[in-house]
């Protein structure tokens, strides 16, 4: 498949789903055909605010069909070719319902040429493709000359610029007796020169290029042609304006427009400008091109680019007003509320959009391995679990039982050095359902939810000397909490076959029947 400006015809179609704009497809229920010469046929179907694009053998049932060649189609979609010119010159034709076809224009965001590296060939083609437009006749009035570029290597070729009567034309191939001929051995070297990464004199002195004929003219090339600028992926003012109004309805904030019945007209002058009116009624917003009768408020903006700057946060509306570059006609108070009525415009992320400030987030996992000593008390408790025993320590002063055991009775401030075996059965005092499990901080793994965490009063313990563990998941719903008066559900531990001295030597507790 051929590429034009590095873009294939199918790239345009394949990106349609991600460029689809719901606002533009409102109320559309139709199929549209695309017949691209030598490339194939595609069918776009829009229904209920959704779309489907498919390559089709025939385009039966389409309300309209666009017919174009690949280069024109890609050119119009990428902004390289003026759509209106292409249409009036007949390079693009529409068969069927023409007005229906017009709707497709609003249905998609602009196709942005991916940031793929341009090849040497792409650059060479772009350089010569733009050469005529870079001709600066006033720098060389009445020049009558032909300049041949004979470029070797991959991506190379021969082009001749013919300058006569203050006009420049480009022709592929040689001419007879050119005024000057530049012989460049490798196309990539010439690209480097044109991009400013290298200079022509180095090429000449290294024998990588030669000038045949009028050397003085070759030295003036920088004046004859404006500097080559490689293509930039950029939204034009017009693109921004279209995108802003294309997204306006979607950015409407009905909660801030309760009871509002108003129309807001944006009358935007200058290149890329136009007139749009947002109509707000019954908590809904619709957009219409052009004026309405007696708009509640009208914003008159002299230059579209100024408005783009305001919307991108690079400028503010009050500066425009005070500089006389914009005016508010009608209800000024409503104009002041626009920031509430519509969410802030966000340029498409795909174009980089130059957001005001992008804050970085540093994602790190902090992990330092630890070796926790268990000591003589916790160690003794964990060790006993290997033998399916739950041991607690008892305060010699108050008789309180601690499980898991700790070095002291914190209440009496004495060593709790009397050991007693408790449980392993007991009664549930508290149970909770956990629906959102705390993940393992390093692996991110979570346990299955919901699960039940229980506090159990093991046999031999009293008061609130309870012990925490998990309950069998399928029994959660039939567990009853107890208290000092009423017994809770009786439970017993389910031990693991392999026990290592860990809290999970007990898998969980289950109802003891």
């Amino acid at each position, binding site marked *: 498949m051929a590429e034009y400006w590095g873009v294939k015809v199918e790239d345009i179609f394949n990106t349609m789903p991600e460029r689809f704009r719901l606002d533009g497809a409102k109320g559309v229920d139709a199929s549209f055909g695309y017949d691209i010469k030598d490339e194939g046929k595609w069918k776009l179907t829009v229904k209920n605010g959704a779309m489907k694009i498919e390559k089709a053998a025939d385009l039966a049932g389409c309300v309209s069909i666009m017919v174009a060649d690949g280069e024109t189609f890609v050119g119009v979609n990428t902004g390289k070719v003026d759509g209106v010119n292409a249409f009036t010159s007949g390079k693009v034709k529409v068969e069927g319902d023409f007005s229906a076809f017009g709707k497709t224009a609003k249905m998609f965001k602009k196709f942005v040429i991916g940031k793929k590296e341009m090849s040497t060939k792409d650059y060479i083609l772009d350089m010569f493709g733009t050469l005529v437009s870079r001709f600066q006749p006033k720098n060389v009035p009445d020049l009558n000359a032909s300049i041949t570029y004979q470029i070797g290597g991959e991506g190379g070729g021969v082009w001749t610029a013919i300058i006569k009567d203050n006009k420049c034309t480009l022709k592929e191939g040689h001419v007879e007796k050119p005024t000057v001929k530049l012989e460049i051995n490798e196309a990539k070297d010439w690209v480097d020169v044109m991009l400013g990464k290298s200079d022509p004199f180095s090429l000449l002195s290294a024998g990588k290029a030669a000038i045949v004929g009028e050397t003085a003219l070759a030295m003036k090339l920088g004046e004859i042609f404006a500097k080559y600028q490689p293509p930039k992926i950029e939204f034009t003012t017009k693109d921004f304006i279209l995108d802003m109004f294309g997204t306006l309805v979607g950015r409407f904030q009905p909660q801030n427009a309760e009871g509002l019945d108003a129309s807001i007209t944006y009358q935007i002058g200058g290149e890329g400008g136009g007139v749009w009116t947002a109509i707000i009624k019954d908590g809904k917003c619709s957009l219409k091109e052009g004026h309405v009768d007696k708009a509640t408020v009208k914003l008159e903006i002299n230059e579209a680019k100024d408005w783009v700057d305001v919307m991108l946060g690079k400028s503010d509306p009050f500066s425009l007003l005070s500089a006389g570059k914009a005016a508010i006609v009608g209800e000024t108070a409503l104009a002041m509320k626009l920031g509430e009525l519509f969410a802030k415009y966000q340029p498409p992320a795909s174009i980089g959009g130059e957001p005001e400030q992008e804050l970085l987030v*540093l994602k*790190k996992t*902090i992990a*330092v*391995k*630890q*070796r*926790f*000593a*268990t*000591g*003589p*008390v*916790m160690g003794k408790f964990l060790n006993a679990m290997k033998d399916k025993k739950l041991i607690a320590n008892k305060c010699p002063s108050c008789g309180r039982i601690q499980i898991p055991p*700790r*070095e*002291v*009775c*914190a*209440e009496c*401030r004495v*060593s709790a050095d009397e050991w007693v075996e408790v449980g392993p059965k007991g009664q549930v005092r508290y149970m909770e359902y956990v629906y959102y499990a705390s993940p393992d901080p390093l692996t991110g793994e979570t346990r299955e939810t919901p699960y039940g965490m229980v506090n159990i009063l093991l046999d031999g313990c009293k008061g609130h000397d309870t012990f925490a563990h998990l309950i069998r998941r399928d029994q959660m719903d039939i567990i009853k909490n107890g208290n000092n008066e009423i017994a809770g559900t009786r439970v017993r531990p389910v031990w693991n076959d392999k026990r290592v001295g860990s809290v999970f030597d007990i898998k969980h507790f289950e109802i003891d029947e």
Partner: protein
Amino acid sequence: MGKRVAICAVAQIKNEGDLWYARFQNMLKECFESIMGQTGVTFDMEKGIRNVITCSDDVFDARTISDNGMTDVVGAHFRGEEKMAQESINGLGYAMACILSGHDDVILYMGHCKESQTESRRMNMNLAFDPFYCRPLGMDFINVNAMQARAYMKKSGVRDEHLAKVVLRSRANAKKNPFARENAAVSEKDVLNSPMLADPIRELHYYPVTDWAYGMLLCCEERVKEFTDNPVWISGYGSSIDSYFLGDRDLLSNFSLKNAAERAYKMAGVKDPKKEIGVFELCDHSAYQMPMWAEGLGIADEGAGGKWIDGGGMEKFNVNTSGGMLNGNPLLLGGAARAIECFHQLSAEAGERQVKGVKKALAHGTYGAAGQHQAVVIMEKGR
């Protein structure tokens, strides 16, 4: 001079390289019981301990709000418990403030750190730095201190041989301290051939991984006799924190230490530390800091650390009779260890390492990269 605050009793466990058989609760409990036994203090809400200050570090304990792991073994339940998450010497300043304000009469002050628990002390130290800039550059206290060490040694004529001397002396003094970490005997050659961690800091120039805990009982002047007949007084305290980012600091200026010392001297009425103070305990995380801090405290001439060592400055001013931080105390706790040695010296209980006739002693603590934070406590013998 205004009111004084007494240290009534101190307790500690032996500094160990790896207390694998104990959790820090066990370490603290031993100190707690010792303090209770020595003083007979109670937790009576009128007459006893109403507030416990603890010192520990979240990262070293691998526990958010590290104090919650041991409030029980330090008797803190059902009363005030406040944590000092900085150098332990600041806890003395804080305890002093609690008592001088009149809010508390009696403060129990406990601290612990178990450096052996983490697989990499350096990774813990790396976490002291900001995550965006310094941490990714791999900064830790050792390699940042090395930057200061290199510049300082050049400025003050301190050579590798001087550092070896500092290490050997630290080891020799520690031998006489029953609570000091027991380190392998080393020769000058061993130190000079010790592997470079970050030039000019060699492995033996840096304090070894250590586990330790301590306890102290402090009280107001009026009630001291209830707890001891032999108190030691805190008569001066000053602390100072320098900028966090190294780029904001002059690493050679000793600015922070001079600032802290000046405030402590002033509060204690010390005019000439060289003459008035009999024992200096310096928090030397690394050997180069011994002469550098000596300069900052005014017992060595500015820019003459090398000569000071050559001229026997360490002996003349009785510096680090305990063996110092260099012999091994955990991070955070160096200042408390210094104060405890001063307590023993002033109480004439320092055994073999006792300096005769000590009336005033200076305990120093430092924390952070290249001595960012500094604090000085002046202690005096009982009336």
